[in-house]
């Protein structure tokens, strides 16, 4: 009796072969467009679109793509951009979140509401007006202009405020008793304890800004300021005829750093996205 019960429970917990089959079919369907692009990028152009088993493998498409457009410059721009945005975001959000989590002052609720406005009216849709601002400031076509609207991140402030509020007040008091100032307490108590949240936000921010397109497209117009996404779009729509092997090679090249990082640190990525999403 007991054994049979256990057997049903096990069977119950096991997904059926039909599930496994369906899950695998969906997964194959999901990677198919990507695999097709990978195949094309690594084969000579006469094979693009013609899947042949004996086709020779080559890295030539990547070399030609790299030489056809200033990708080195685009990589540099994107790297600088992403690092600039992330570091400013972290500093500003840490300070603001600390104020919201551990200070009492008049107007706190209004200030917090003002911050949260950015969660619904995000910079992505205010492109027309922000472009005018950048033109007034003389910043059009600079990396700074791409970053400025994103420096103060309501999301980061919200996330860190939640984390800081969860840190026991006794730790704070103990540090103060030992004579630490507010800033020292923040730096020595709060920041170290919030490390996982910083990692989570950093991964989310990096992948967002590495991939961001519309605002950089609007506010840049030269190679010196263009990030990878805009460079890739310009490259594949203007510079090339339709040489699919080069376009797919360029596409994979621009996504490679994030893709490789993701494959290496899958667990951290997935956990960071989860942590950032669950408030």
């Amino acid at each position, binding site marked *: 009796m007991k054994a049979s*019960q256990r057997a049903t429970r096990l069977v119950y917990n096991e997904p059926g072969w039909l599930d496994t089959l369906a899950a695998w079919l969906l997964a194959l369907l999901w*990677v198919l467009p990507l695999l097709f692009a990978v195949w094309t990028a690594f084969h000579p152009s006469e094979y693009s679109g013609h899947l042949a088993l004996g086709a020779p493998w080559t890295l030539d498409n990547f070399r030609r793509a790299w030489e056809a457009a200033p990708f080195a410059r685009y990589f540099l721009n994107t790297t600088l951009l992403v690092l600039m945005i992330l570091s400013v975001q972290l500093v500003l959000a840490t300070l603001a979140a600390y104020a919201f989590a551990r200070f009492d*002052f008049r107007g706190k609720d209004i200030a917090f509401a003002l911050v949260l406005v950015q969660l*619904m009216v995000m910079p992505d849709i205010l492109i027309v*007006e922000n472009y005018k601002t950048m033109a007034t400031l003389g910043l059009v076509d600079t990396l700074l202009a791409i970053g400025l609207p994103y*420096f103060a991140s309501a999301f980061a402030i919200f996330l860190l405020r939640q984390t800081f509020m969860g840190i026991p007040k006794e730790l704070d008091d103990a540090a103060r008793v030992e004579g630490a100032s507010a800033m020292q307490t923040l730096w020595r108590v709060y920041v170290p304890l919030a490390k996982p949240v910083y990692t989570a936000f950093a991964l989310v921010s990096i992948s967002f800004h590495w991939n961001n397109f519309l605002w950089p497209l609007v506010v840049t117009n030269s190679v010196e300021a263009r990030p990878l996404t805009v460079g890739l779009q310009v490259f594949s729509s203007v510079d090339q005829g339709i040489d699919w092997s080069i376009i797919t090679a360029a596409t994979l090249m621009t996504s490679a750093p994030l893709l490789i990082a993701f494959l290496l640190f899958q667990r951290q990525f997935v956990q960071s996205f989860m942590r950032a999403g669950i408030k």
Partner: protein
Amino acid sequence: MRGTPGATVSHGALHAWLLLLPALLLLIGFTHYPTVATLIDSFYSTPKGNRPGVWVGLENYQVMVEDPVFWRAVRNNLWFAGATIPLSIGLALVMALWVNERMAGRAFLRMAYFTPTVLPMIAVANIWLFFYTPQYGLLEQITGLFGLPAHNWLGSPSTALGAVTVVAVWKEAGFFMIFYLAALQTLNPSLREAAAIEGASRWYFFRRVQWPLLMPTTLFVLVNAVINAFRMVDHLFVLTRGGPDNASTLLLYRLYEVGFQFWDTGYAAAMTIVLVVVLASVALLQFFVLDKRVHYK
């Protein structure tokens, strides 16, 4: 902005405002000010050369309401939202339920589902452009195997919007899967054992136990999906440019065209207000209605 006025200013309050100052100034400069300025600009004509814009009242809105392309974008966007939201959430849920099981090749499955999420949308669009492209594309080779006639998916008005919708679902589903997976992993395993002992079918267990407990996650994902449906337009730049004949244009893409290709900033301001209203209503609806009804605490 120098602390609260009056005699009650404590050292703490001043300190707090100083901590907030840099973030608040930037938020005011690039979120609050542009929102208000957009509203004001939407009542002025587009400045031309040295002539500044003049007050025109609701004329920009009038132009917008009478513009058939605007209504096309609205219809398309509603269609796009109506398709991407349920499809990506439904697929995400199914994926999460599968990956949550002890299934053969679970790690590969999870990776396969999630990979599109880390790719830039422009790269995704390039990959799919190649996939859809006539003659070379994999899609045509597959349909050709079944003897179906060649079809230009992105080039015909009847399929262009559907084709870009598929790309959006492909990109989003894996992202939403993560949140469902996280929620599923926090569910108490004894719930499942109890259901097994009671002899509940898997469907019954899902419908009566898992689905209700996943409600807060569904809400969170839903709000994100709605916002993305009005914000995600990067792929249009590569795949269709809103065409053919505006068959696949979306609101934000149209806004870009009006604002940065026709440089009609007055009209663009009016369209921005429409988008702000849409997104703000989503957020307010979530905050005041849904959040209060869904949490099981």
